[in-house]
């Protein structure tokens, strides 16, 4: 019933002559097999695999400059490669479903158009076996090179494989293609900044090629924390999967919950009560504060100032205390539910929150005194790792990294979700694009989050926190949903496909911001010496849980 109503609405809107659809149909005519408007600002078109490149080229010319995500879905008779493109100027998202034959899934690679497509296509190849013709370096991403099989296919059977011992070691023996040294020049050396990292960034591995002290080439190798979350999602119900979303970006868990829950609520067509919306906003902004405090602490620790790390964790402890009062856990909360929150906040929590809002700016004044009057720190970070705005957009960088290069884009402003359009806050940008700018952006964003929390606290309505329309057994109708939010690290998006028959998602893809930011890292971080590269790496603010999933 709900599905038919949605279908009618969609057809009405389609007939209302969607502008972009008109342009597409006029250029490609019959090649557009089907088009639908999933909701305002989400257009979906379906094409055949071989028509992808011309359509993408046309769209890039029409203003779609941000490639958000490339996923693959295995429908048993055919496969689909799903592309999500966002236009900053038109503020619209287009989802392209490209149909591919299942026995030989090949499609043109979009790397010449969007450099951000690089890692996404490698992952789709790794997980599903879709071959992208024209990709410069189509190797496996999350699984070891010697792995056999493609896990996200529906006919994949887990079996013990003794894959990783042979063949893996030889692959890193030869240095990558750099011209042989001339007279007087030093030979290049391949150095492994290995999975056991001295600073607190998780198991990231950077294979750096050094010429003396200068970094010539960096190749990040990821997959050390790969737990197969997307495959697990296909075997758990929607409700059961919620605690697992916490564990992707474990520093700010509520935002992951939020992205997932928004996608499922879109599929179900459920409206969340007002009080729950306000509380969700408050909790998300608290997570943003916690994440940025952790960034400041880890950044100081990377530079050798252990004191800052202690102070950062002390401030973060206040946020964790608040969250413990609300949800019962300090790090992985599992507090949002489909249709609202798990339960209401305990009495006295709002007073604690107000106290926190009063105390934190005084503590942050200390940080400001410490960092911005510190010559060594400023000299260490200024001019290091400069990222140009055009390169940033091309590489798919989002979040504070993008805003530090001067591009004022924020998903809360451009594509408002939940009730963010009711709040008044500033999108913090800096012009320089270097490490110091990224630090400053994150530092000032804490103050903006405090503002949002204050506004939300003032208007917090009474009422229930869980929507009564959510059925006991969640079985969404057939459909797809793509929810984007502004997680503290960048744009986090969940692409959920439901087949209408089962209580588990048919396919769930997580577009994590750290994945895309890290894919941009090798392109602008070369040419510096090792300590600079370490500081640069720290300013990307990654967490391996969401890169590897």
């Amino acid at each position, binding site marked *: 019933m709900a599905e038919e109503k949605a279908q009618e609405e969609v057809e009405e809107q389609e007939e209302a002559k969607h502008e972009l659809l008109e342009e597409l149909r006029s250029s490609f005519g019959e090649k557009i097999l089907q088009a639908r408007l999933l909701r305002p600002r989400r257009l979906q078109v379906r094409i055949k695999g071989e028509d992808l490149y011309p359509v993408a080229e046309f769209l890039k010319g029409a203003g779609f400059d941000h490639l958000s995500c490339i996923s693959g879905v295995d429908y048993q008779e055919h496969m689909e490669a799903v592309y999500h493109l966002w236009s900053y100027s038109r503020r619209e998202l287009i989802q392209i479903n490209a149909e591919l034959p299942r026995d030989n899934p090949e499609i043109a690679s979009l790397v010449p158009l969007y450099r951000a497509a690089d890692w996404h296509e490698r992952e789709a190849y790794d997980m599903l076996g879709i071959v992208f013709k024209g990709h410069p370096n189509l190797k496996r991403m999350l699984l070891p090179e010697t792995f056999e099989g493609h896990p996200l296919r529906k006919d994949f059977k887990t079996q013990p494989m003794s894959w990783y011992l042979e063949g893996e070691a030889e692959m890193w023996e030869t240095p990558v293609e750099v011209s042989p040294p001339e007279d007087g020049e030093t030979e290049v050396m391949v150095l492994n900044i290995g999975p056991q990292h001295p600073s607190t960034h998780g198991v990231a591995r950077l294979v750096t090629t050094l010429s003396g002290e200068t970094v010539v080439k960096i190749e990040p190798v990821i997959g050390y924390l790969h737990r197969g979350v997307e495959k697990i999602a296909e075997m758990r119900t929607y409700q059961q999967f919620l605690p697992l979303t916490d564990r992707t970006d474990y520093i700010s868990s509520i935002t992951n919950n939020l992205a997932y829950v928004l996608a499922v609520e879109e599929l179900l067509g459920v409206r969340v009560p007002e009080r729950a919306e306000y509380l969700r906003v408050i909790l998300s902004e608290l997570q943003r504060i916690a994440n940025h405090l952790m960034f400041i602490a880890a950044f100081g620790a990377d530079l050798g100032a252990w004191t800052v790390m202690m102070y950062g964790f002390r401030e973060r402890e206040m946020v964790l205390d608040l969250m413990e009062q609300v949800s019962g856990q300090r790090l992985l909360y599992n507090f949002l539910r489909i249709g609202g929150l798990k339960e209401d906040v305990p009495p006295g929590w709002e007073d604690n929150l107000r106290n926190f809002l009063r105390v934190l700016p005084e503590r942050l004044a200390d940080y400001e005194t410490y960092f911005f009057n510190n010559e060594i720190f400023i000299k260490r970070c200024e001019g290091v790792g400069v990222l140009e705005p055009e390169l940033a957009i091309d590489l798919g960088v989002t979040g504070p990294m993008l805003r530090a290069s001067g591009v004022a884009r924020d998903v809360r402003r451009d594509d408002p979700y939940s009730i963010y359009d009711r709040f008044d806050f500033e999108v913090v940008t800096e012009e320089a694009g270097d490490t110091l700018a990224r630090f400053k952006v994150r530092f000032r964003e804490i103050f903006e989050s405090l503002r949002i929390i204050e506004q939300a606290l003032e208007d917090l309505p009474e009422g229930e926190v869980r929507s009564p329309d959510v059925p006991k057994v969640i079985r969404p109708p057939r459909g797809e949903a793509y929810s984007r939010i502004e997680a503290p690290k960048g744009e986090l998006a969940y692409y959920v496909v439901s087949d209408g028959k089962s209580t588990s998602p048919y396919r769930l893809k997580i577009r994590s911001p750290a994945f895309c930011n890290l894919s941009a890292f090798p392109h602008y971080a070369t040419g510096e010496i090792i*300590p600079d590269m370490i500081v640069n790496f720290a300013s990307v603010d990654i967490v391996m849980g969401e890169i590897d999933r």
Partner: protein
Amino acid sequence: MVNEMLLQVLQGLIAVVAVILFLSLNVLFLTWMERKVIARIHVRYGPNRAGPYGLLQPIADMLKLLTKEDIVPERADRLVYNLAPVVAFLFALMPAAAIGIGSGLIAADIGVGVLYIAAVASLSTLAVLMAAWGSNNKYSLLGGMRTAAQSLSYEIPLVLSMIGIVAIVGSLSTQDIVAAQSQAWFGIIPKWFIFYQPLAFIVFFTAVVAEMGRIPFDLPESESELVAGFHTEYSGMKFAMFMFAEYIHFVVGSALVVTLFLGGWHLPVISPLVAELGWVKYLVQVAIFVAKMYLVIFVLMWVRGTLTRTKVDHVLSYGWKGLLPLALANVVITGVVLSI
């Protein structure tokens, strides 16, 4: 004749033992004090389990290091590898012979004290290079090279900043330098060289921090960004020797700062008071000297708790392009002022 010689030898031995004892006690106390001060800056407790207030912690550390296994890398250069900690310890102790903690309480009152200290202080770089080379480890070698570069670049400003003082005092002996600071304006404000040579003080202070290898010039100690420093491959007692040598550098460097710039064992009101009291005078002098030394040590620990590490090329550029011109300018200014 023989008796005289024997007496002299005995005196020399007693002096050596006294110096080593003094330094060792200070170093033991310093390991505890450093951890406590850093902990307090971090708003936490620091060691408080081993003994009251954790005062037996250095003993516990020593026991631990003594009982560790001594691992020698397979392809290490044995002679160089085994000799490096000894050399480090030796050359760390040598400058202490020319620094006195009271008038006449000095191991070797040679007339060229300052020159001797400057000469011997640069020898400790040898130990670092020996350790780096003998370990047969790429990263140790890189770390050792960086350390050697840092030490070399900061030696020259160190020595140059001492020249102004020598010019004012007219003698190279440390006893004379301290004696020259014993006067006071109006009986209260002491005529220490920190007021006469502020530029030299800044240069010397920065250079001595770099020589000690402490944050912000942290390259030898914990280059944990990437490389683990020249003493990666050492374990057990050899590592303890390196740590000991480093803390001895710390104490000797602070003592040098106190001797040269902060008036040694003189305080304006108290020193004239006790000057006539016989052996009590020596106790008071030692107490004043030690107090001033710990003040400098505390400031250095506070700096360690606050600042970040500098980058390798910044370290060298601060040394050559920043401190060296300042030191030279100081020499010129001192010369001009003295000749007027």
